[in-house]
């Protein structure tokens, strides 16, 4: 059996341990199986040079490789070598394009005629709209009316790229209703439409498809760190919402057992859960969730005892999701990935710290990974006595790669509002914000 055959067999499994699977309406099963077939042929076997074209377009259109940058001042602050994987420099401003371009190209190879996607804050929607424009595919994005009103600039970007943005008015008119509406569209038009899922979630093979398109992050970082620091890192740190930037950063390092993998979840305002109201004031699924089935896969979830999905919360819209990729659930259960979390305040401090110390304004999602550095390795005498050091800090080691999954231009307003409400140690003086 050739290596590629072996990989293919392993990769064509629908589950990661007990997680994953294909819990979808019957009408979608053929589409999901068609995607499995396409995944195996084009992604795993590079049929018709699919992966070559993908890589070339990610280079010329997307801007790959992205740099791995030694962060001089963070390294000094944390008294260890900190390297930043700069996905914020990717076209569109986040790692999302790796996946969106891959899937739209795959849809094209599959002969699909139309692209749909859901979006919450708009990051995945803008990436998909860009990819669809680039590859000349009609594209419709479902987005809750509430989110549309909160995220105007991203709506405009999608429209500028020629995508239709379909407002969803049902319920709270946010991400969850947008997902339902996209599912409905897909269930209706499945024969000619590809649904571009935005993270390593959904039914098999989506979690693998998305992971493989995102794995370039870790593949590059692994080469770059060896070139720049002369060895493998002691740890890789990435934020985790659905988990696509996370597995993208981790995948290549999974076999390197000496490398600790820290998935930083959104601790929101608290890790406690209000069962009565069905509210989780966090999105720390890996840290606090229980097993269940959501959006096509068995995975860890924020859910009530009855099985109702909770409303999650995070200051960062892109992490605000009650589920998580099944592969991460599995890697956490097997101990390969360490789930940690930082709260909204820590994330905001992480945002300000990188902006001021390194001249990089990170996405609020990525700011969680940066906030975790402080929690795990920050100077002790920093007035932070109230919060204990993260217990996993020793695993960080002397050489750390942090994935900066996106840039924070989209988050400026949120950060201003949230910063004014708080007394943050790393924020510029508040007077700074009114002029």
């Amino acid at each position, binding site marked *: 059996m050739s290596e590629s055959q072996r990989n293919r067999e392993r990769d064509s499994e629908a589950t990661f341990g007990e997680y994953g699977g294909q819990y979808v309406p*019957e*009408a*979608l099963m053929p589409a999901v199986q068609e995607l499995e077939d396409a995944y195996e042929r084009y992604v795993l076997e590079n049929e018709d040079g699919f992966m070559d074209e993908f890589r070339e377009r990610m280079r010329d259109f997307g801007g790959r490789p992205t740099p791995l940058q030694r962060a001089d001042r963070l390294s000094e602050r944390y008294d260890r070598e900190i390297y930043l994987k700069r996905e914020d420099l990717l076209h569109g401003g986040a790692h999302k394009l790796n996946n969106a371009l891959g899937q739209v190209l795959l849809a094209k190879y599959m002969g699909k005629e139309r692209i749909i996607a859901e979006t919450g804050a708009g990051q995945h929607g803008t990436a998909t709209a860009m990819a669809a424009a680039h590859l000349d595919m009609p594209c419709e994005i479902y987005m809750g009316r509430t989110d549309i009103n909160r995220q105007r600039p991203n709506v405009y970007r999608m429209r500028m790229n020629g995508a239709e943005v379909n407002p969803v008015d049902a319920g709270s008119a946010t991400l969850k209703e947008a997902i339902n509406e996209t599912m409905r569209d897909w269930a209706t038009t499945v024969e000619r439409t590809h649904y571009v899922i935005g993270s390593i979630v959904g039914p098999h093979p989506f979690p693998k498809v998305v992971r493989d398109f995102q794995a370039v992050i870790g593949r590059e970082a692994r080469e770059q760190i060896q070139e720049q620091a002369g060895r493998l890192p002691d740890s890789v740190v990435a934020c985790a919402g659905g988990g696509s930037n996370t597995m993208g950063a981790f995948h290549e390092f999974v076999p390197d057992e000496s490398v600790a993998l820290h998935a930083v979840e959104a601790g929101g305002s608290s890790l406690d859960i209000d069962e009565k109201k069905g509210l989780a004031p966090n999105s720390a699924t890996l840290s606090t969730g229980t097993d269940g089935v959501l959006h096509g896969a068995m995975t860890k979830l924020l859910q009530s005892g009855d099985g109702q999905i909770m409303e999650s919360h995070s200051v960062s819209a892109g992490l605000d999701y009650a589920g998580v990729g099944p592969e991460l659930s599995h890697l956490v259960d097997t101990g390969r990935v360490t789930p940690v979390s930082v709260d909204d305040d820590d994330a905001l401090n992480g945002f300000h710290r990188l902006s001021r110390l390194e001249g990089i304004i990170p996405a609020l999602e990525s700011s969680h990974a940066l906030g975790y550095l402080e929690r795990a390795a920050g100077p002790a005498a920093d007035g932070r006595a109230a919060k204990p050091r993260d217990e996993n800090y020793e695993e960080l080691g002397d050489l750390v790669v942090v994935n900066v999954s996106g840039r924070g231009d989209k988050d400026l307003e949120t950060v201003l509002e949230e910063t004014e409400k708080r007394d943050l140690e790393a924020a510029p003086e508040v007077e700074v914000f009114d002029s």
Partner: protein
Amino acid sequence: MSGETNAQTDSDIEAAIRENHPALISYITAGDPSLEDTKEYVEALDRGGADLIELGLPFSEPIAEGPTIQAAINRALDAGTTPQGFFELVDELETEAPLLVMTYYNMILQYGSEPDVRPFVERAAEAGLSGIIVPDLPAEEADPLRDACDDHGLDLVFIVAPTTEGERLETIMSQVSGFAYVQARLGTTGARADVSNATHDSLTRLEEYDVPKAVGFGVSEGDHAAEIVEAGADGVIVGSALVDIIAEHEEGDAPAADDLEAKARELKRGALRGAEGDVPEPEQP
């Protein structure tokens, strides 16, 4: 085609379909707008001639539903409907028509102290339910639930979609019990004004299988029912059209039950006309 009685081991559900052929299968969401109302509505449907009654156990992420049923589910959840309450309602119900529960897989998994399908199935059997339909559980993932259903004598109904063909159709039809839920068209649940070609195609594809076939997704009027039955179905499944009636009435409103009963009667009459070949000329889109 089908419709002849099958002597062997007919389940309650199969029996109800074969005996009342062509059967009317009705769906409403439990707890919409309250469990007390649901009790009345179920009884009204029973009186109106429904031969099987599906009760939806609401789940917060109903990805297979159209807007009508999604709204019903939200009303039921807002009213505080829980699996416990649902089963207690079923405990109380005494209907002619056998009852099925329709819910999403996570609701089944989470019943009991850890993720496992058995506690739910046990409790369903105990409450007197005859079958289970799970819109997000394709045959490929159904082994644990089918085993549990078999052990407790419950039918596990599978959906056959317009896209279900070839090997997968074989597999599903070999696993289905009770009836095959024939999805009339691509898309989600919701009342529509016509009967799609996909329905005819699906029924043709299913001709060779000796399992009752009931057609759902979009059936809203007696005339649809007639046309579908004429095309070879053993039953019609009506949900959104009934939920629409509930949505139009205030909570505790007596006429809702009456209207439901009347609607069931219209639909049943339509189905019967279909069986007799008395079908109006379908409007061409």
